């Protein structure tokens, strides 16, 4: 089995990517001062002119003329929908660890939530069979999201986000092998 990358780096990667997906305004994302990955640099840059990033977030994820990249796992299922089986399964995972999303009226299978939860599983040293199972159930699907994001994103923050998620996926796949 290939080893996961250095734990602090994967945690940072998951934590920042999760927040960029959940928070349209980069000014509200806390970046640790010693964070030195590409995404943290892009967040810091975006924080200097947040409006462009906010606009891009809206265009990509909330657009009322149609969304470019949906944020929820259920939308990438064979029968795309909101609040599909992946929502219920994510809720079960969260509850098993005594947690539930604060936004109770939004789907639990939001990629940002899924990444933040994944970070905590790893950080808490959950055994590999657990993290691999979680990865397969709730993270691996994001390849489709990421390739869409890569095609559609025009702002460097979201291009960096796509790359970051790609490396998370690659690390997860390595671990699962």
């Amino acid at each position, binding site marked *: 089995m290939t080893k996961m990358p250095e734990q602090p780096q994967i945690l940072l990667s998951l934590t920042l990517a999760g927040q960029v997906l959940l928070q349209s305004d980069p000014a509200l994302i806390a970046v640790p001062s010693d964070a030195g990955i590409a995404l943290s640099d892009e967040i810091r840059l975006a924080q200097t002119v947040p409006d462009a990033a906010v606009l891009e977030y809206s265009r990509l994820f909330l657009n009322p003329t149609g969304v470019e990249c949906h944020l929820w796992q259920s939308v990438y299922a064979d029968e795309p929908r909101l609040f599909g089986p992946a929502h219920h399964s994510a809720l079960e995972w969260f*509850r098993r660890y005594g947690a539930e*999303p604060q936004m109770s009226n939004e789907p639990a299978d939001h990629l940002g939530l899924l990444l933040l939860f994944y970070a905590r599983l790893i950080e808490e040293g959950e055994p590999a069979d657990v993290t691999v199972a979680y990865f397969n159930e709730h993270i691996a699907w994001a390849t489709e999201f990421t390739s869409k994001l890569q095609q559609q994103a025009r702002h460097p923050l979201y291009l960096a986000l796509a790359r970051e998620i790609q490396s998370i996926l690659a690390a997860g796949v390595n671990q699962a092998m």
Partner: protein
Amino acid sequence: MSLSRRNLFQLGGAVGAGLAASPSLQAFENYFSPAASPYADMKTVVSACGVCSPACGLQARVKDGVMTFVEGLPGDAHGNGRLCGKGAAGAGFLYDPDRLKYPMKRTNPRKGFDEDPGFVRITWQEALDTIAEKIGHYKTNFGAESLMFVTLPAPDIWLRFIKSIGVVNRIDHRDECFQTDMVVQKYTTGGKTWCNDFANSKYILLFGWDILAKAKLVYANGILDARDNGAKVVHFSPSYTPTSRASSEWFNIRPGSDLAVALAMINVIVSENRYNKDFVDTYTNFAKYETQIRAHFSEYTPAWAETLSDVPADAITRIAREFAGSGASIAPAHKKTLCANYNNGTQLVHAISILNILAGTVDRPGGRYFPRTFSVPGVDAVYPPPAYPAAAGRRVDGRDKLPHAHAVDAGLFSTTADGMLNKFPGMIKFAMWRDYTTLAFPHPPSMEKALQSVEFNVVYDFLPTDTASLADIVLPGTVNFETSDIMNRDYNAKYPQAVARSAVVPPAFEIKSVGYVAMELGKRLAPDYFKTADGSWINLSTLLNEKTKRAGLGENFADFVSKGIVEKKADFVPRTTFGAVGGGGKCQIYVPAFETGHGEPLPKWHPKRDEPDSTYPYYYLTYIPPIHKRNSSQNNAILNEMMGDNEALINPKLAAKIGVKNGQRVLIRSRAGQIELNAKFTELIRDDAVMVIHGFGHRSRLLTKAGGKGVRDGDIIPIGNIDDFVATKNFGGASCIMDAVVNITPL
């Protein structure tokens, strides 16, 4: 699933105790809370469908606030424990990934379909403040006539808002639907009714296209039950539809000529004195106008009608006799019973009403009857408002030129674009669209052009419609599963029955009901109308409780919900006085009120608006398939899979004549425009017509499933012109939603 030994809200495990919260934990705590319960919450909720108007009762299973299954509600008079395909696909609307989720505002001032509107998320507070400020601004500077509300007049609190600010231009689609029947029934029998007693009918005469598949489950079941009971069903339609298949006889009638057949049937029944004498003598004004009536219909012979309709004269005569003699005959008038399709729609529904009156089945077993319902008070009865301001100003659709259509206060969609572009250019400064898109109008390109001149557009909807592309503010709206209301049964209502529509799930994201929008805009713009007698704001839950109580359905709404269905069984007592306006308690065959208002007291023959000629030699037909709801269901995953595109349906005989192969691309042109799509052969339509299914051609490219698929049938349907309606006696404002002729060129 069992609880893990780990609690992710504190650092432990590999990371070790005693350390400060890590960045991962901090972020986690920002978005997660300790779980209230480790278990899923399961329940069953009684509610009502909202895809079409009968609102069939349903029961839904809900897991953790998510609807997981729906089925019909046993005992419900409409669905009778079943749901139709559209109703069963309700989750496809509720959980459509493309649903609007948050209020958004445009940041790019340049508007157009090729412009990126630059939408950004805003709070409801900002959205409502901005909308209220804009309404106030335009009303003060340009008068109430500068505001256009494209919306049905319900719920009552929403209508109160519209009235409280003196809106002149509220329009809805009913001129494309049953508005002509509203106009005619008001004077002939006493009011539009949706109740057809098919179960007891012996003879069902269907002018129209596909009542069985397209219309409502309650009608489909009714007609099939009637067939089982031995009723005869006769269908006139230029295409062979599921209704034709369920009929005893089908006539491939020429488009727009149903009126000729109906007039000739009246001729036969009257001239041969086959009408129900007891009913006609006692309950109608036949005797008073007998001379005029007999003289009027004498020219409309079956032989004459055959030349216009292709329905054989002897068949017309026979059917007229059978209809008059069955003892329980009915000719329903529903939306696609040509009420709106052609310029002669008003005369047709008047003729149909006369047929029902002559059969003597108005409010009688087997006929069209008036619903016996619970009396549910509206908000104005519960909380009487101050006097509403007069709606002073010009009607953009010119509807005031048609006094009879104006009085029923519904459309006119068909003439609005002409009003905005040509008659009153620049008058509309502000438009608010609720659950309608430009696709719903004849010739959408005209409405799109008209909309570009509107300074401020607001769209309240559940999906990103084409109109949203031009919006300044977009508000995310609810679907039926997210709202509560009292649903009277009014399609099958021999005695009162009501179903509790309780919200199956709370609205997700920041979706809000139109009642909320009404209240919040009302508080900002006309606060006096949104207060109770003691000066506090109206509370919508309290209002619903009060309505429930006053209607006798329960102590409060929760009590009603616990019962699900409430009914008051009683024998059906036929009416002996009728509410026809001006009729003195009787039904009116001859309608004196129609002597004015560009009407006709007795229906005369008028051709449809556009007739085939050498340039445009073929009839154009449109169709709404059973599995779709007009233009709002094409993005529903379940329904889209069944039908996700449209084609030009063409009879192989016509195709051979013009050199078109099956599957070949064709150009269809009318005087209004052109569309390009693939031909598909079918023996099921006339060989002088081409048919295109409505509802496709959404240009909102990002509607995941429907965007960019198919073409808009309406692009070749001419818009209406109010002066033409006046000149041609289209006094009920039929929208001519299918009144076009075309030529076809293979590509």
